[in-house]
């Protein structure tokens, strides 16, 4: 099983949309896929499920069907994780639903992190909770790939989430804030890796602990935020800066000769703004590339749906190529 997280501390770049569509794409390519919503805002969950299903998942009180249900015993200090359950979305697609209650875990995780240095077993159990939950669910549903969506910040929940993954993809928009975000992200990731590297040696022997390498796989340029009104020149300038900034801050290499964006091996995809397809997809509760004439995708939309399919198909294959996912 390969696990991937999509992470950028700049919000609003279309991260959740990306995870949602990639999950459907992998499932349609016959890869057993698990989508995990670790963002306390639970946007990914609400994209997958309609209101009636959400009401069933989030009744008042206990939430046994969500991630929150699984960490609740830890949160209350009454033991280790509870067995988590995945929600079956499609034939090869499962979801570990998120929960607004997850935000309450932030403080607990912040507390636990430094205590790991003191060989505190409880602290290790808290810190690796996400990792162990995800491993367990992925094994239950026999997932070949796990895609994780997290919130846009450098907090403790995200730090702990990163411990659960093999690789990171960075979605970004061609603007100042995204590039500035990259500059903060790179060093922070490095700090977290080093700290965990020291700490994991002190973990109790019987606890499965992640290796915490979370290797950077590349970036995906999202044009969602791109507005018509902005001069194309400025936009192009930000695009040109992405390869160097990524290499310098995320990979920690001094960039000498820099490729252009479309030639950069770290660039996994440049995704267009699919305009009216997205609202149509939200309405129909399915990915943009699966829209049919009955959903309103007629005339020129047919071609756009096809283009969108090709884009995500290419991205899915690109990522598969860089990891150990077998695609035929």
């Amino acid at each position, binding site marked *: 099983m390969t696990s991937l997280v999509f992470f950028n501390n700049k919000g609003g770049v279309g991260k959740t949309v990306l995870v949602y569509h990639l999950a459907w794409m992998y499932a349609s390519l016959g890869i057993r896929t698990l989508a995990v919503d670790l963002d306390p805002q639970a946007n990914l969950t609400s994209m997958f499920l309609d209101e009636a299903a959400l009401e069933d998942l989030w009744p008042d009180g206990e939430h046994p069907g969500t991630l929150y249900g699984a960490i609740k015993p830890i949160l209350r200090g009454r033991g280790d994780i509870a067995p988590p359950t995945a929600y079956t979305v499609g034939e090869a697609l499962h979801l570990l639903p998120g929960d607004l209650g997850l935000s309450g875990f932030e403080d607990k995780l912040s507390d636990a992190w430094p205590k790991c240095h003191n060989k505190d077993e409880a602290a290790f159990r808290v810190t690796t909770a996400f990792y162990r939950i995800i491993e367990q669910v992925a094994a239950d549903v026999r997932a070949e790939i796990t895609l994780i969506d997290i919130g846009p910040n450098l907090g403790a929940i995200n730090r702990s989430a990163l411990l659960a993954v093999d690789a990171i993809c960075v979605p970004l928009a061609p603007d100042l804030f995204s590039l500035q975000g990259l500059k903060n992200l790179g060093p922070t990731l490095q700090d977290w890796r080093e700290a965990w590297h020291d700490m994991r040696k002190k973990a109790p022997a019987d606890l499965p602990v992640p290796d915490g390498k979370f290797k950077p796989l590349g970036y995906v340029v999202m044009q969602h935020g791109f507005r018509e009104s902005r001069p194309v020149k400025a936009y192009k300038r930000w695009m040109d800066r992405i390869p160097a900034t990524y290499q310098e801050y995320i990979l920690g290499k001094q960039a000498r000769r820099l490729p252009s964006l479309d030639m950069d091996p770290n660039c996994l995809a440049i995704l267009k703004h699919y305009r009216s397809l997205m609202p149509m997809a939200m309405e129909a509760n399915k990915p943009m590339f699966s829209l*049919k004439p009955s959903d309103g995708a007629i005339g020129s939309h047919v*071609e756009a749906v096809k283009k969108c399919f090709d884009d995500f198909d290419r991205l899915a294959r690109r990522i598969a190529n860089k990891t150990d996912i077998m695609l035929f």
Partner: protein
Amino acid sequence: MLTRDQLLALLSDLESDRVERTVSTNARDKFGEAVCAFANDLPGYGKPGYLLIGVANDGTVSGLTVTDEMLTNLGGLRSEGKILPPPVLHIAKFSLDGGDVAVVEVQPSDLPPVRYNGRVWIRVGPRKAVATEREERILSERRVAMARSFDARPCQEATLDDLALGQFDAYRRVAVDAETIAANHRPLEQQLASLRFFDPNRQCPTHAGILLFGTNPRFFLPGAYVQYLRMPGTELTDIPEDQAEISGDLLSVLKELELRVRLVVQTRMRSVSPLQEQLTPNYPEQALRELLLNAVMHRNYDSNTPIRFYVFADHVEIQSPGGLYGEATRANFPHQNSYRNPVLAEAMKALGYVNRFGYGIERAQALLRQNGNPPAAFEFDERNFLVVIKQAAP
């Protein structure tokens, strides 16, 4: 279905290209492709093909345990609508000395070419492959000679000029795999023929072609429209509040019906406790949709009668010409389905109006139940099919 002895004979007959053996149990795409290839029957055996799961290439039984779940999954091949038009399948499990074998028997299709995910698969000796343009042409020509369904038969008075070809082009992009389209050089008549909308021998569109893309389908098929009436009370004798004859090509008819259904559905606010209110529609929109789509898909287009979609103050009636068809009978309705119009069914699946085959009525009933409506009542005789849906109690 074959007998145990026939199966044993097939196991050892390694030469036969009507048999595909496999030991893997979860290669759904491979199974789909194999079923599609047998249904196309390019060599023209006119006999069923067999997919044997749990048998190695050399004919030995691999020691598989066939579960119920697996048989159900195999049954899904028929109803999921990935193989179009829907093939005729029989599935059985045999327990042999070395382990279980799941057998899928595939009858050759009356309406080739059959597609799996938009691609035409055929048998080439002991293997399968995607059909070339030439092979697809052979299949299209063979089909017309033996087409039994009304929608696949030629509409002899019509010509290519009676079709709106822009509509066809858009449909083709939805129904046919993109790579096949990109590699395509065939003339328009053959593009139409390979999707069963044109008869290459008589050089005219089929009835399905006219229904889907005709500029004026009612000229050739006078009953091909929906009569919509909205009555103020509960009697048909009152003066209608609104009426329309919904006609045109299939996609326009379906779009128009959708708008009418939205007008029928009215949502009321109901208080369930002093602090809570609940929104209750008088009819679940999806259930009305399913039942209307059923009428459009299964009606008899040979008749001059329209589908009648009558909306009364307290109930809705949908009446369509043509009684139960084929294997569907009074005794097994609605659990057994049969396709009077397989080409139309295929188109409605490709356009996304139908998701799976054979679940429409059960789904409608479930939605009605959840919404608090009485179950839909069905009445049918030899010539007509009527559904009555009562409003939910306020």
